[in-house]
């Protein structure tokens, strides 16, 4: 297993290298001239030449790629073309908002979804089963950004009980929480249904398996069987799905942040795309990708730990 984990972790290195090359390639293909975008009407040939030299824009493509890679390794993602701030500090400002939103919605969705699915599997003919079906259908039918719009319409316009815009005053936990409810719900609702359905299916499979029957024969209490023995194996598929889902979650966060005007990573990326501020777009995409790669790595490794039955070559 250790060999598998090391192999899996090492594979990240060439992948990330490819990610950086692709990101660099995107900027390289970007139409327009960063220097004149930065300077605006003040652009004189000398100033443009100076900026080109400072940003290594006058060098050949491989040299620029080398500068870019070296910069990323040192943690230097360049400076914003518009504001002149360091990209890394812009990202550091935005990231906590996105992390809070993503973790809250995923955490709540995982707990509710997995428990709902487990209940539905244990009490096969109870109304909870129907509830799971409805919630998962809703999750499929209403994509996160449509959910965000509808929730906003419902709770900010028709019944104005929750704040619509912003992330709340810093340092005021109640205000921050109030501002978090709607975005987190919008982002998490699809996950509740999905995880509930997944857990129900795998729980039904697990409950039919031999080791559960054996435990019953040993007169182990039903609750212990369900929640300690069965659920542990039934959540395994959910772990991979959550790992893969972090990418979707970050993507959904883009829309939710734009709609609720939360100053997070997604809003930063979209605003910079509109402003043609490509160093920031590049940095933002890179950070989102790093988070996603990390989440996948953790999911794969924890998968190996949780399910020792799986044999890896």
């Amino acid at each position, binding site marked *: 297993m250790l060999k598998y984990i090391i192999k899996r972790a090492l594979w990240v290195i060439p992948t990330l290298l490819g990610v950086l090359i692709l990101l660099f390639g995107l900027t390289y293909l970007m139409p327009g001239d960063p220097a004149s975008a930065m300077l605006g009407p003040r652009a004189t040939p000398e100033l443009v030449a100076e900026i080109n030299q400072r940003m290594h824009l006058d060098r050949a493509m491989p040299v620029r790629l080398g500068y870019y890679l070296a910069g990323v390794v040192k943690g230097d993602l360049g400076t914003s073309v518009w504001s002149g701030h360091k990209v890394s500090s812009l990202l550091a400002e935005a990231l906590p908002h996105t992390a809070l939103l993503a973790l809250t919605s995923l955490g709540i969705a995982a707990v509710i979804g997995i428990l709902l699915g487990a209940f539905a599997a244990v009490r096969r003919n109870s109304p909870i089963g129907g509830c799971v079906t409805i919630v998962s259908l809703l999750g499929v039918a*209403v994509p996160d950004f449509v959910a965000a719009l509808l929730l906003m319409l419902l709770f900010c316009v028709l019944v104005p009980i929750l704040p619509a815009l912003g992330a709340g005053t810093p340092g005021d936990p109640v205000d921050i929480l109030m501002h978090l409810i709607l975005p987190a719900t919008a982002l998490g609702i699809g996950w509740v249904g999905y995880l509930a359905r997944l857990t129900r299916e795998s729980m039904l499979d697990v409950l039919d398996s031999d080791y559960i029957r054996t435990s019953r024969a040993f007169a182990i209490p039903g609750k212990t069987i369900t929640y300690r023995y069965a659920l542990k194996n039934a959540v395994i598929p959910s772990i991979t799905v959550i790992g893969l889902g972090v990418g979707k979650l970050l993507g959904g966060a883009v829309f939710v942040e734009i709609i609720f005007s939360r100053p997070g990573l997604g809003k930063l990326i979209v605003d910079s795309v509109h402003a043609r501020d490509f160093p920031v777009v590049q940095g933002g995409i890179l950070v989102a990708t790093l988070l996603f790669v990390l989440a996948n790595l953790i999911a794969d490794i924890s998968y190996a730990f949780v399910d020792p039955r799986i044999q890896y070559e």
Partner: protein
Amino acid sequence: MNTESTQQTEVGCPPGQLMFKRKWTDTLRVTFRAVIKVKGGLWGGIFISIMLICAIGAQWIAPSDPNAQDIMSRFAAPSRDHFFGTDYLGRDIFSRIVYGCRIAVLVAFGTVTFSSVIGVFLGVVSGYNEGKKLDYFIIWLFDIIRSFPQIILALGIVAVLGPSLFNVVIALAFTAFPFYGRIARAQTLSVKQADYVKAAEAMGLKPFQIIMRHITPNIMAPVIVCLGMDMATMIVWESGLSFLGLGVRPPEASWGIMLRNGYKYMQTSPWMLLWPALAISLAMIAFSLFSEGLRVALDPKERER
């Protein structure tokens, strides 16, 4: 190895059966029948047909031009003149929804066609050359693109190419093809062990012919199931990109652009938001029901249940 393959050609199919070729229209018809036998598949099929009809015959179905402005009746609530109401320029929302089907269908079919053709081809090539340098290179390529959160990569590509319908299709297809590639590769690994592939090799067919004629047709079932679900996702993402102002350009009637306008005027005329939201939701339900039907229809294990 050598004796094994000679044996197989001797025992292999009789020449008549080797020549037998099923027409693809037959395959399509049989599959479609199986899908609509599944409970949800029928409803999904009906909804998708309605969408297709709206997309093809938009100019006959829509009561007015989607871009015809009527400043006198701006923000009109749903009424007999305007079933779904009008927007901030007095454009008929019902007509715009109908025309929006066209963009949704174009994006859905366009992206999955691009991404599945490229993805399946690369996946089969990679699986056929398992363990060789080419295989590792293609896996590396897939893994790079899969490392990005899909919609965020699409955002970046659209930012570079500039917003337009075609560029949205390209960007979405680019982010999606590795997923088909992974499926195709995994399937190829099992299919290439089959006797008929070995027979084809023994007959001296070129790798390209084997890939195109003998492997690809036999790995399509899981790919097709994936296509159905992917179409729904692509419709949503197109709307999402258009909502952000990075997709189809206004005044084109895309559901995403309508949502964007609805978002702006949410407080005064919520119907501007509700109708496109409903359209997207119905499309999502339709495509997921249909692809669920496809999955059941194409999976022999499920059919027995």
